[in-house]
């Protein structure tokens, strides 16, 4: 291990330190102190991440081995970090965006009382720690450690206001669904171990180990890994937890449920792309699932009225796009979209946060409107976010999304069509959100109105930074068509072989033009549709169908939850109490009964006794002489 990475251990350790300080000293620390500590540690690891990134850019990569986590009967799992292009990129995203959100939170959570405030930051730091573990881990087990860790933190943060039962329900749902995914992941690991006998990236993710695996193995392993990914990254069928997860504080949604944690699945697949590219069936599955998720979520987002819910569904939808990219073998595009999406979606969440903050906790966009004149910064940054996500040329979203679409086109035209349509829907509902919220005239209560104000600097500055990022963020990946030469792709090439570009430049340009034109159309349609918006009740079956999110939750309730509950109570009352325990107690009852019966032999009559004796004697004679 080269000594250029001798600070890397600090990257996860600092947040852990922050967690410990905030957690243990939560009673004593003042709000400002804990906020400061919370943000400072993340800043620290951000700085180190930048240093690391620079070194990696210069071509230093390596695996840093600390100690052996498990060493048992042939399996050796090191506690080691792998620093390479992919992980360093994610480090930047996590620590960078994380830092901004920490700063934002200091202001946003200001109404919380001291120890809850400290607790909040402790959790946040713990999350950053586990997320860093996830991306830095040198093998699948450390990745899994972080993987479950972030699940825990999201549980804790969603249920942060634990007195509200719905929130804790949401938290529980999130954790359990993640657990389901994790089981798939775990099984994938077992499969991998049983075949290759190791979990180190360096030993598993190479042609040599691929040779050990049959196609069936690879397909199975990758599919199981994908199951894990669906849990973490909210894909069909395990996506329903994410919208509910909006119960948590808004910055949490921004950090965990938009920028970082939910992209863990993409990270996993990108990390093990060598496996996935040799598993065609899996790729098809991923493509379908991704596309379906994107479409489904987008369609639901059309009719939502809770500002955070809309963002949540759009997140799910965007994640779907990323998986679409992965499925089409376009890993770079996926990672690229992760990056840009991290910027603009975080931006929008924080924006919505500042809106909610201003509205005093109000989240229903039908009670908003005309906020632009009250809070300019928020409005403008939010607009930038919308433009970015809908893929207007010049904004970051454009490049990444276009790359995905191009890949899809190269893969299959129908898929491309659906994807494009989904992109249009995205543009439509985002602008619906924007228009209803920021333009027109205010629809809320009166005291809400004069309470309206722009958020403090601690909140606006991150917004601005993120806005800038979501404009320029795309320029690290300009395709050749537009005269750039895809920096990102080159940077990642050691990890991810650059996708073969089948499309000719003309087609590509044509596609860009097409999508841009359609998107603009969608936006204008939204403008016309919602320019003077009234809170009207939903009309028609389809819209109510969408409002009720395709009744997915209800289906799960009926298909899975109810039967399990039924079975449990059935076991309890029939099998446990009646049959098993019943038979155990039955023996005792039998003995008692037999005792009561046998007592009558002891009749007290000498005659009877002697008779029984004689009969016994007869019996003995029979046994002795007449039973052979």
């Amino acid at each position: 291990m080269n000594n250029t990475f001798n600070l890397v251990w600090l990257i996860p350790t600092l947040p852990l330190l922050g967690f410990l300080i905030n957690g243990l000293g939560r009673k004593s620390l003042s709000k400002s102190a804990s906020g400061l500590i919370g943000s400072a540690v993340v800043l620290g690891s951000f700085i180190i991440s930048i240093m690391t990134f620079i070194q990696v850019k210069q071509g230093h990569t390596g695996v840093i081995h600390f100690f052996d986590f498990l060493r048992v009967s042939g399996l050796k799992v090191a506690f080691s970090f792998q620093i390479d292009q992919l992980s360093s990129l994610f480090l930047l995203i996590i620590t960078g965006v994380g830092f901004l959100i920490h700063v934002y939170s200091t202001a946003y959570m200001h109404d919380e009382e001291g120890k809850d405030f400290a607790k909040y930051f402790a959790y946040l730091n713990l999350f950053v720690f586990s997320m860093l573990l996830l991306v830095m881990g040198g093998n699948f087990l450390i990745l899994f450690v972080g993987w479950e860790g972030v699940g825990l933190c999201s549980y804790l943060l969603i249920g942060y206001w634990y007195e509200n039962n719905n929130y804790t329900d949401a938290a529980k749902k999130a954790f359990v669904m993640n657990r389901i995914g994790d089981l798939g992941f775990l099984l994938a690991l077992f499969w991998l171990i049983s075949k290759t006998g190791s979990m180190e990236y360096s030993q598993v993710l190479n042609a040599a180990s691929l040779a050990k695996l049959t196609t069936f193995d690879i397909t199975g392993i990758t599919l199981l890994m994908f199951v894990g990914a669906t849990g973490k990254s909210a894909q069909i069928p395990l996506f329903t937890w994410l919208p509910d997860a909006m119960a948590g504080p808004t910055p949490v949604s921004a950090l965990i449920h938009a920028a970082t944690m939910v992209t863990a699945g993409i990270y996993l697949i990108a990390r093990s792309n060598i496996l996935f590219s040799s598993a065609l069936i899996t790729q098809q599955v991923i493509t379908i699932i991704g596309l379906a998720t994107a479409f489904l979520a987008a369609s639901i987002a059309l009719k939502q009225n809770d500002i955070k819910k809309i963002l949540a569904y759009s997140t799910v939808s965007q994640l779907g796009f990323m998986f679409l990219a992965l499925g089409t073998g376009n890993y770079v595009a996926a990672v690229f979209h992760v990056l840009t999406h991290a910027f603009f979606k975080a931006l929008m969440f924080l924006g919505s946060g500042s809106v909610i903050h201003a509205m005093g906790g109000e989240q229903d966009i039908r009670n908003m409107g005309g906020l632009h004149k009250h809070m300019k910064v928020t409005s403008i940054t939010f607009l930038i976010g919308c433009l970015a996500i809908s893929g207007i040329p010049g904004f970051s979203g454009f490049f990444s999304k276009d790359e995905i679409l191009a890949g899809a086109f190269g893969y299959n035209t129908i898929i491309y069509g659906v994807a494009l349509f989904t992109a249009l829907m995205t543009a439509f509902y985002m602008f619906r959100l924007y228009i209803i919220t920021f333009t027109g005239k205010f629809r809320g209560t009166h005291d809400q109105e004069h309470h309206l104000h722009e958020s403090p600097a601690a909140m606006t500055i991150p917004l601005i930074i993120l806005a800038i990022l979501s404009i320029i963020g795309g320029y690290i990946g300009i395709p050749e068509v537009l005269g750039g030469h895809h920096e990102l792709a080159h940077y990642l090439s050691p990890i991810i072989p650059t996708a073969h570009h089948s499309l000719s430049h003309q087609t590509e340009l044509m596609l860009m033009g097409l999508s841009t034109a359609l998107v603009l159309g969608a936006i204008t349609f939204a403008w016309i549709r919602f320019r003077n918006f009234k809170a009207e009740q939903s009309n028609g079956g389809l819209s109510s169908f969408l409002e009720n999110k395709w009744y997915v939750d209800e289906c799960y309730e009926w298909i899975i939850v109810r039967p399990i509950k039924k079975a449990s109570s059935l076991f309890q009352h029939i099998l446990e109490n009646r049959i098993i325990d019943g038979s155990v107690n039955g023996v005792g009852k039998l003995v008692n009964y037999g005792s009561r019966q046998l007592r009558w032999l002891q009749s007290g009559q000498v005659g009877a006794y002697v008779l029984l004796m004689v009969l016994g004697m007869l019996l003995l004679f029979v046994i002795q002489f007449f039973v052979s």
Partner: protein
Amino acid sequence: MGTYFSFPDLFIWLPILAGLLCFIPALRNHGKNLSLLFSLIILGVSIASLFFTNDGKYLSFNHVSYIWLKYLGANYYIGLDGVGRSLTLLTAIVFPLIIGSGYKKEVSSSHSFYGLLMLSQAGLMGVFMAMDALSFYFFWELALVPVYFLASKWGGEKAIASTFKFFVYTFAGSLLMLVGIIYVYLHTGGRTFEDGTIAPHSFSLSAFYQASLSVVEQTWLFIVFFLAFAIKMPIFPFHTWQPDAYDQSATPVTMVMSAIMVKMGLLGVFRWLIPMFGQADHLLYHIATVLSVIGIVYASFLAMVQDNVKKLVAYSSIAHIGLMSAALFSMKKMGVQGVFLQMFNHGINIVGMWIVLDIIERKTGIKKISELGGLAIKAPALTIFLVIISFANIALPLTNAFPGEFMLLNGLYQYKPWLAVLAGLGVIFSAVYTLNMIQKVFYGTVKESTSEVSDIEINEKIVLSVIVLIIFVAGVYPQPLIDLTKASADQLFTIIK
């Protein structure tokens, strides 16, 4: 030095001494302090014993053998091997925790309570160290008797009945095992003692390993021994004594039962059953594994509908034990080492669990989940401890249970993937009911039942902190524990070869 004392001797005699001292009328009122003091001394001894693990050098420290019944061929032979060490360590750690957690609590006729507690410790230690079948059986029963009295006398209103069920059930099982022991004994070779006496047969462990038994005999004996151990562990469907017993007994006793006594069954399986009957029909091993896995899912199902929080933990414990025994019977090295690791960690976690529940029950007098709520507001420290412990209980990474459960499931997977999948369902369910419990008991708004709950006392804080510390240390760096028991696993697999 080893000729003057040895660790096994200390492990047996210190608790007995403590127990007897407690019964001396002069010391009646100091039973609590005495037992706490002695249990701490024992803890010290067992930690010290970890530095003398090299049998080659310190044989006389780790193995004690006296001629007992020479015409029968039985020695009083107790010794420490890897697993023995980890389990005695567990016992030595758990007892101070138990006594410490209840330190502020007043017990009726405390001297006999703590005396019996220490005596039970002696029995348990003996079971873990016995290297001679007869000694093993003796300690096996001796561990049971004090616990019977403890559970019945200081238990809930239905304690007498439920504890008696527990006693008779396990007693029947162990008597069957006795028949099995005798049968094997009669098929062992002769044994010559130091004083020249020659016994026709031998009770020593090694002789039992070499007993000449046909496959059919082994199959039958497997069943007999399996019954005894399955009842003790307990494995589905022999588990029905357990929830009532745990629910009805006083919590310290429940801790002893759930943290240590259940390990007796597991220990019996890998020190006696598997090595002796390696040639038994492998269908039996398969059945045992499947039963255990069924037990995992079944117990998880039941745990989800329990309203009594103690029963919930009882069922979850059944599920955990089921996973261990499944890994044990599937006989994959990874799984077996996982069992050794997990036996220790499960003990720690479940003790923590019981302590927290005991505190809750003491403060509110309620065991029903549905009647509790909002404790997080009233007792934040308690809540944090519980959350950590219960996440350790569902094997979250970086807690002690994770490496073990990983190895267990991995071993099970190597045996039969679909069993691993079923067991994995158990993992999911465990998350469900544990989180349910946390949510209903701690989150939500304060109810009148919990309205004047205060946060925890200092002694409880200390005890719980110790547990949490162990949880994290063993979770981040489990290797020492694994190395401690590695030799035993290797030995097991060399024997059954």
